[in-house]
């Protein structure tokens, strides 16, 4: 059925990725240093450390975080209100329970006599009327089902809207009000590649890439407040955008084909 990547494989990939990144970072840093030194020699010493006004902290960083938290809480309550009372489908409920039971069978198979295990296994995977038996090619494609069922499609639409609209509005608000100045300094040095992403409103190309605009603070908050929301709103909250974004890419999943 599923083919789970071995933990060792993932670790190996991550290690490789980190080594490559580290080398890139080192090389670019040296290049930067060289470039900066050459520029300094040209124009004389330049003040590398910008002193940022504390007013920026008081009036930009903190209000932005507070606003994002409040918007998240608002979205949570709105989604709670808008959630229609779902009448569970009979087939779905039964399927869910069958899966739990079959999973228990697989997990604890050593604890029951072999005859009863074989009887149960046959009950599930029997070709004629096994509960879990799915003939090849007939498995309902999850994505097709998603669009054909009108209720589910409406729910998906609502959830997506409730995610997209606040994000767009907040982003526009940040861009309109909080652009054109340096908002924060990232404590670790970065390469020049990040300049386009983090310094959108700052039109000076000589400022260190560590000095970022408020757009990057917005993105930092967007991904970082997930943990805060799960503490204050409990585990199931509608603000888990990243999870849903990951879900949206994972369709086209056919359970009968091996190696999914």
């Amino acid at each position, binding site marked *: 059925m599923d083919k789970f990547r071995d933990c060792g494989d993932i670790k190996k990939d991550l290690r490789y990725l980190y080594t490559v990144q580290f080398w890139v970072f080192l090389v670019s840093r040296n290049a930067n240093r060289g470039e900066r030194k050459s520029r300094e020699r040209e124009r004389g010493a330049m003040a590398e450390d910008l002193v940022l006004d504390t007013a920026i902290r008081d009036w930009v960083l903190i209000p932005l975080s507070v606003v994002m938290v409040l918007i998240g809480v608002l979205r949570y309550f709105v989604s709670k209100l808008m959630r229609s009372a779902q009448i569970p489908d009979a087939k779905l*409920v039964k399927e869910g329970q069958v899966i739990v039971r079959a999973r228990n069978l697989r997990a604890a198979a050593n604890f029951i006599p072999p005859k009863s295990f074989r009887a149960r296994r046959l009950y599930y995977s029997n070709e004629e009327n096994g509960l879990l038996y799915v003939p090849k090619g007939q498995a309902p494609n999850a994505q097709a089902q998603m669009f054909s069922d009108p209720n589910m499609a409406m729910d998906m639409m609502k959830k997506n809207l409730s995610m997209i609209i606040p994000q767009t509005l907040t982003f526009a608000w940040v861009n309109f009000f909080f652009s054109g100045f340096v908002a924060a300094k990232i404590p670790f040095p970065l390469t020049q590649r990040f300049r386009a992403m983090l310094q959108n409103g700052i039109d000076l190309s000589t400022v260190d890439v560590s000095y970022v605009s408020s757009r990057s603070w917005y993105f930092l908050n967007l991904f970082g407040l997930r943990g805060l929301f799960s503490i204050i709103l409990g585990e199931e909250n509608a603000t888990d955008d990243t999870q849903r974004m990951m879900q949206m890419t994972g369709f086209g999943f056919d359970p009968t084909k091996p190696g999914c």
Partner: protein
Amino acid sequence: MVTKSEEDQLNRLEAQVDNAGGGAWEYLCLVRKLKVRRPDKVLKHGLAILNDSKKRSALGTEEWTLCEQVAVAAMDCQSLDVAKDCIKVLRKRFPDSKRVGRLEGMLLEAKGLWAEAEKAYSSFLEDNPFDQVIHKRRVALAKAQGNITTAIECLNKYLDTFMADHDAWRELAEIYISLQMYKQAAFCYEELILSQPTNPLHHLAYADVLYTIGGLENLQAAKKYYASTINLTGGKNRRALFGVCLCTSAIGQLSKGRNKEDKDSPELQLLAVAALEKDYKQRAPGKLPLLTSALKSLRVSS
């Protein structure tokens, strides 16, 4: 399942509350959380809180949960007037609630009006065919009427849809044992072991059923399950120790005529006997001679 620490806490709170030491609300919350059945205490202390208007307003919205808990306890203690009052209060507060409707159905059951209760439950199930609690109440209704076959039917239908509900499997197993349908009970216990393999009670019950069915294979399996119970409880379960001794002697009796090719080593029985004797010496030294004579008779026949 209630853990040891929770059990200790419950007993401590119970003692504290009985001696008028306050803490009644914590006790009631713990009872509700652990789902233990203490109707008399819940009724006494819950009613004390509800009748005292100061304490009642201190609860806020929890007042209604307490009302429900007291109503159920009152029905358990057969004080139906108290229950009716509580339910009336709840109905006034929540006019369209299914939960209150369920309580009213339970009250009809408690009064013995089976037909009306059955009608009420069926109407609830029409609205929402997936309400697990109402299904279970119907089974309880059939069982209370003494109609065990209907109860089994309802429970089987329920388990057809909700097959991962281990409480229902346990109930079905107990019903089968009461009807002496041991093979079916064994199936139910297998389900329980599958869903909770580390719970020694299920192993023990399964071993008991296997021992009762009899036959060489089942006795050997029963011995294995008694052994696994001993393993899971760290050797403290006296019933499993006795079970091992009985199984070994029964197996020995059955296989007396055959050759002793696949006879298990008698070590297990000797260990169990030693553990039992040590336990009895510690806790009930007066009964030790009884134990030794009983065990000796078992060993003689093996």
